[in-house]
């Protein structure tokens, strides 16, 4: 076992419904790990437990040797886990730049006194702002968002909004990035680009990626390991080839023909 990211015996129920049932898995640092399963299998519930929106009923979630289950979402974000959503969660009235800068803010150390002296060129606030802007510009370049930089996010097309959300998650400089159906609602061209971006994020930025994805082609092409779940339980875990060949997966998820 490795100690980068492990989930052990995780269970979460809603009333009488068991959404996640004693789930175990472990992800290696630097890998792309995909979770597949039919609708209602508990994938998003799992993400919500990891990012602190839900408190698990039992079980452990460990990240880089520390237990993070039960922590608040903002604390988990500061531990280095960022996420995107199946339905976009963005600051729609702000520009792309502002959305990404907000992602940087957990790394900022300035306060009101720095703010008051920011007119001085070498003030702490001005230097810090410049530093963070540079990081954000880098992400904007990486995701090809230059033309959207100063546009309010609410005015962008859906595919680009998804990228802004990805950018905002990256601005946190996470060690682990959770992507909830990143390719949903994208055209096949956009999906192709997304494939390369996710690869870039993994290889250039060294970010590990935990991903829920319905597009099997993408899962097969990109993942190092795949976990298939149904009714909150593990069906099978392994390399993409192993998982795709598993009869339960074919039956439960890919259809029998």
């Amino acid at each position, binding site marked *: 076992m490795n100690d980068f990211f492990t989930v052990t015996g995780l269970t979460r129920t809603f009333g009488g419904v068991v959404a996640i049932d004693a789930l175990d898995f472990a992800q290696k640092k630097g890998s792309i790990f995909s979770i597949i399963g039919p609708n209602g299998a508990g994938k998003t519930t799992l993400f919500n437990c990891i990012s602190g929106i839900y408190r698990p009923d039992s079980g452990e979630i460990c990240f880089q040797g520390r237990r993070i289950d039960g922590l608040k*979402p903002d604390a988990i974000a500061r531990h280095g886990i960022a996420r995107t959503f199946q339905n976009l969660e963005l600051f729609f009235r702000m520009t792309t730049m502002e959305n990404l800068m907000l992602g940087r803010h957990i790394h900022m150390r300035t306060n*009101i006194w720095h703010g008051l002296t920011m007119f001085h060129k070498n003030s702490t606030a001005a230097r810090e702002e*410049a530093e963070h802007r540079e990081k954000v510009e880098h992400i904007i370049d990486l995701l090809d968002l230059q033309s959207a930089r100063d546009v309010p996010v609410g005015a962008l097309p859906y595919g680009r909004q998804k990228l802004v959300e990805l950018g905002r998650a990256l601005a946190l400089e996470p060690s682990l990035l959770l992507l909830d159906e990143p390719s949903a609602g994208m055209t096949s061209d956009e999906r192709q680009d997304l494939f390369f971006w996710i690869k870039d994020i993994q290889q250039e930025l060294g970010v590990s990626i935990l991903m829920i994805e319905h597009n099997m082609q993408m899962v097969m092409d990109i993942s190092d390991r795949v976990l298939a779940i149904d009714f909150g339980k593990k069906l099978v875990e392994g390399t993409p080839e192993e998982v795709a060949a598993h009869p339960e997966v074919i039956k439960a998820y890919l259809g029998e023909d």
Partner: protein
Amino acid sequence: MPAHLVRNYWEHIINSKLSIRDFSIGIALVLIWIFFALQSDKFLSPRNLSLLFIELSVTATLALGMLLVLLPGMIDLSVGSGVGLIGGIASVLVFHHHVPAPLAMTSGVLFGLAVWSLMGLLISSQRIPAFIITLGGLLVFKGAFWLIIRNATVPVTAGNSANMYSLLTTWVFPEWAGYLLVIVTGSGLVLAKIRSRSQQKQYGFAVEDAELTFLKLFVSIQALLLMVIVLNQFRGVPLSLVILGVLTFLIWVITNHTPFGRYLYAIGDNEEAALLSGIPVNKIIIGAYTLLGAIVALTGFMQTAYAGASTTTVGDLMELDAIAACVIGGTSLKGGRGTVTGVLFGALIMTSLLNGMTLLAVSPELKYIARGSVLILAVWMDVWLTRRSPT
């Protein structure tokens, strides 16, 4: 001024992506002033304008505090009662217990900080709607206020001698100091603008047309100078107006140039996304209410000093004027949108309406109806404009 500059200015305004809202405030303000000036020749007199600017200082101070909690999508209905209560506490300390004014005012501020942070705590971590907590606060503070002043009228001056407390709205700067203020503020504005332009250039941002920047500065400094000239014709620049100026600068820095301020906008725009971006939403909301508490205390001193005494009606309905000022100035009640300049204009509109109606001796009944109608109209416009805009 060269004619082509003016033409450029207008072309710029017409071509820019300003919304109706950006224009409507200015137009409404001009119309209101023209209306009252035609109805009463006293409206534009230096004396009345001096009073109007003191009233503006009080209303705008409270409205700037209200902005801090409206931005993250909260509200505070208790500020009016709070103004009465904290003003009352300070004047009882000064008048009945002979506490020096600075100490009495410090106690008032500490009280405001403590009580408002407690309300923030209940709202954020206990998830009780802000509307309910502060509605409760409105009643509790009102009752506590009447208990503390024993339903009597407590003057703000002890032994009929002026103290620091009552000076808040009565002291004026001497004539030369007024002009000095224009020079200091004006050069501050110019320096800040030059600095921000050079920074924007440095980081490759689009820089506003130089002529337009010049004209904007020119117009603002002229307006400032005109204001001081008019105020000097009566008694001089009131202290309260300078307090408002300083507070405006502080709130502007907080909302635009600190992470805390940007979080306020982020929470109002999308609370869940804010939480998952690592923003400690609860702490930020408690922080916003705590700051508001200090501002309520400051407004309490100013309003009580302006009224000349602490009586049962001080602060009545001020929460609604503050909310109306914010909404008229383009602040969204759903959170996420609102600016310091907008709030100042909104407060100026509210103050002008109230001042003008008083001058025309409009009956209290009609004043209530007018105030309520303006509030409804402003919120309705906000809802209507929000629905039309793409975001």
